[in-house]
């Protein structure tokens, strides 16, 4: 290879390379990274579950009402999981989601907030929940990005603190929502689909666009994949990390509003163990727990698989304990599959 080779004119190389790389090779890698190919296993799992549901409880399972029941259950944890997907893709973890849901629900249903809401508009309750969620996320993010606290520890602290604060504010009592306009709006339906389900769909769609079509999403992958490289490439890694946790907190605020509408209450016991449900859904969806790879579509499937599983078990009068066993098995199988696929992808 001579000097002249190095400075070879572009046109010439372009023509030689066209023959070097068959287009098929490119397409196949493209498919691996596209939604359909990677989520195939999840689609199969969900379809299998539905088949089991139809066979064992066809007359109630395959009804519109039951589908809506599944979706309504999926909606709350789904929104939390979307936020979790961003955090995990960005190389972090958030253990405080359930506690943030509880705190936001309590804060948005205090007498003062409800008074304001009934005097003016229910939007104040919604705003309160979103602000509380985002603020908790901000604290998480600042601690992690600037305080250099490990995400696991920082959010573990938030898990304890937020639920504790929720208990203090509510005096561990259930706060009943008396603002009827709030309940009517979020408890209602639009075009035959519950508003809660619409919110879930909207959040999921927005999350997909944000992760896959924007600079924010690209930076999330970069920060999660190799934060040092991202920093040296000129990305504001710390600020982005903060933004990711704020986003997760915001999702928890939204979930809190949804849970408030569903239960007509705010309570410090809301959202128990949501962190585990959300992490499980995100991981079986195909998002890498170590960061750098994430999929919103996978997460949505993960949530639907768990809620459908729950529904099928309930319809068949099976115990929650058996369901937990099935859930554990699904997590392990999904992660094993994921590792196999990853190993095949890197060994090439």
């Amino acid at each position, binding site marked *: *290879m*001579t*000097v002249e*080779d*190095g*400075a*070879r004119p*572009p046109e010439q*190389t*372009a023509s030689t*390379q*066209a023959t*070097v*790389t068959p287009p098929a*090779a*490119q397409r196949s*890698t*493209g498919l691996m*990274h596209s939604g359909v190919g990677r989520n195939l296993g999840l689609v199969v799992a969900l379809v299998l579950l539905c088949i089991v549901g139809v066979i064992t409880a066809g007359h109630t399972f395959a009804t519109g009402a039951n589908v809506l029941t599944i979706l309504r259950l999926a909606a709350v944890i789904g929104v939390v999981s979307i936020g979790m997907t961003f955090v995990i893709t960005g190389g972090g973890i958030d253990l405080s989601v359930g506690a943030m849901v509880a705190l936001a629900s309590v804060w948005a249903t205090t007498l003062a907030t409800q008074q304001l809401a009934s005097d003016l508009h229910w939007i104040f309750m919604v705003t309160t929940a979103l602000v509380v969620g985002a603020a908790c996320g901000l604290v998480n993010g600042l601690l992690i990005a600037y305080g250099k606290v490990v995400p696991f520890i920082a959010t573990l602290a938030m898990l304890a603190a937020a639920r504790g604060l929720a208990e203090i504010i509510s005096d561990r009592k259930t706060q009943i929502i008396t603002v009827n306009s709030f309940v009517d709006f979020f408890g209602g339906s639009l075009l035959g689909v519950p508003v809660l389900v619409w919110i879930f769909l909207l959040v999921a769609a927005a999350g997909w*666009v944000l992760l896959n*079509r*924007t*600079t*924010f999403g*690209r*930076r999330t*992958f*970069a920060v999660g*994949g*190799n934060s*040092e*490289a*991202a*920093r*040296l*490439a*000129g*990305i*504001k890694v710390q600020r982005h990390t903060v933004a990711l946790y704020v986003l997760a907190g915001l999702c928890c605020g939204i979930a809190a509003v949804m849970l408030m509408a569903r239960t007509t209450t705010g309570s410090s016991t809301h959202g128990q163990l949501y962190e585990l449900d959300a992490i499980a859904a995100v991981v079986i969806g195909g998002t890498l727990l170590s960061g*750098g*790879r994430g999929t919103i579509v996978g997460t949505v499937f993960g949530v639907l698989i768990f809620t459908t599983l729950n529904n099928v078990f309930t319809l068949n009068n099976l115990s929650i304990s058996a369901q937990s066993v099935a859930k554990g098995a699904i997590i392990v199988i999904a992660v094993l599959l994921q590792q196999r696929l990853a190993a*095949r*992808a*890197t*060994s*090439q």
Partner: protein
Amino acid sequence: MNDLLMMTGIVKEFPGVRALDGVDLDVRAGEVHCLLGQNGAGKSTLIRVLTGAHQPDAGAISINGEQVQLNSPTAAIQRGIAAIYQELDLVPELSVAENIFLGHEPSRFGFSRRHEATARAREILQGLGHGEIPAHRSVGSLPAAGQQVVSMARALSREAHLIVMDEPSAVLDPEEVANLFRVIRGLTARGVAVVYISHRLEEIRQIGDRVTVLKDGATVATGLDARATPTKELIRLMTGRSIEYVFPPRREILSTAPVVLEVEDLTRPGEFAGIGFTVRAGEIVGLAGLVGSGRSEVLETVYGARRAATGSVRVDGVPLRPGRVQAAVKAGVGLAPEERKSQALLLDEAVFKNITVSSMGRFASGGFLNGRAEREAAAQLTTALDVRPAGVEYPVRNLSGGNQQKVVLARWLLRECRVLLLDEPTRGVDVGARSEIYALIRNLSANGVAIVLVSSEVEEVLGLADRVVVLREGRAVHIGPAQDIDEHQVLDLVMEGSAV
């Protein structure tokens, strides 16, 4: 002649790639057998087969004349084969002795016998001529060379007859390399065979006995005399071509060219002090010095990745806010860092995403990315830089070192950088691709980019740079035109007064 190791007709296929296509290798007891080949020639795969990490699809391996199956790393270790990898596989928190006996701790009834371990570790280290390394120190606190000695001690503790060393000199200073060679000679004197992999031909001449050359997954020559075979011949075997001139001809820098980068009195206590130099448009300034002389630290401080205690960095006369990478990037400064994989690349992401990561704003409107425009812009650059394989959708992980470096350069080309900081731009890049990188760097400077180059290879600094800054222990001991100084003088400056 009795061969210790005999590999014949080794074939290894991965989906879509035939990584090894009939490799032969024979290693004798007590020799240093050098393995030469460009990146992607199959050296790493061959080592992985030899150490039991990969199973060959065809071919035979025999040790001391006995046919063996190395179907796991454990099996290889039991056969007396040990490997020292480029990225050392030590546990930094554990002590030297614990690392040496990791996995086969001296124990009785499940209780580890720490005194015995320490004593035996000391023995082995002394045998390697490094009795000064304390067996109880944590490995993370040792310098790179010390860690390498620990790696070797570990291999010996398992009574290895054959030690594979993958680019052991890459992280070492000349002084440390000399030390390493002493250790290797000690090993071979005891009948241990060493398979030595390096990109540096001069090292192979110094330490090697015989050479095997790989190209495209096959052995093209074996049993060559490491000292007598001419360089041209080796390069011809590796590349299929012969390389005459590695460095492109120097161009004259106009004294009227504007000064782009001004570094003044830059200091970081404990790392470097009072560093100042200027770079004109189209000029290449080389920083020469040993590892630990502060050369990479200077570069990272100019870039804002480290915060200077005092001093200033100006681009086009405008001072940069210290300690802010974004400020430097905004002002048109780019860095190709020393550790490409861990500091520059998103290995699992597509080539085009790695190229556009620093210029995303250009392809976005309202935060939404135009993927098509990104791919087109990236494709233009990869074509111009001859990145192989072509195609911007491949994960960067699949590319060779040289092509990965091109991707990093493409990133800054896309940003139309005014200043480019290159830290070891040819580390882990094979000889053929090196000259391409050299030509690329020269082309960039010809287009008016101000370049600062750091390299541990003095001839690379002298061959590429217009002016040279020699660093010793954090201070600039010489600044002057590259033509006025030769390799020996630089080495004298670099070594003078350094603790030997």
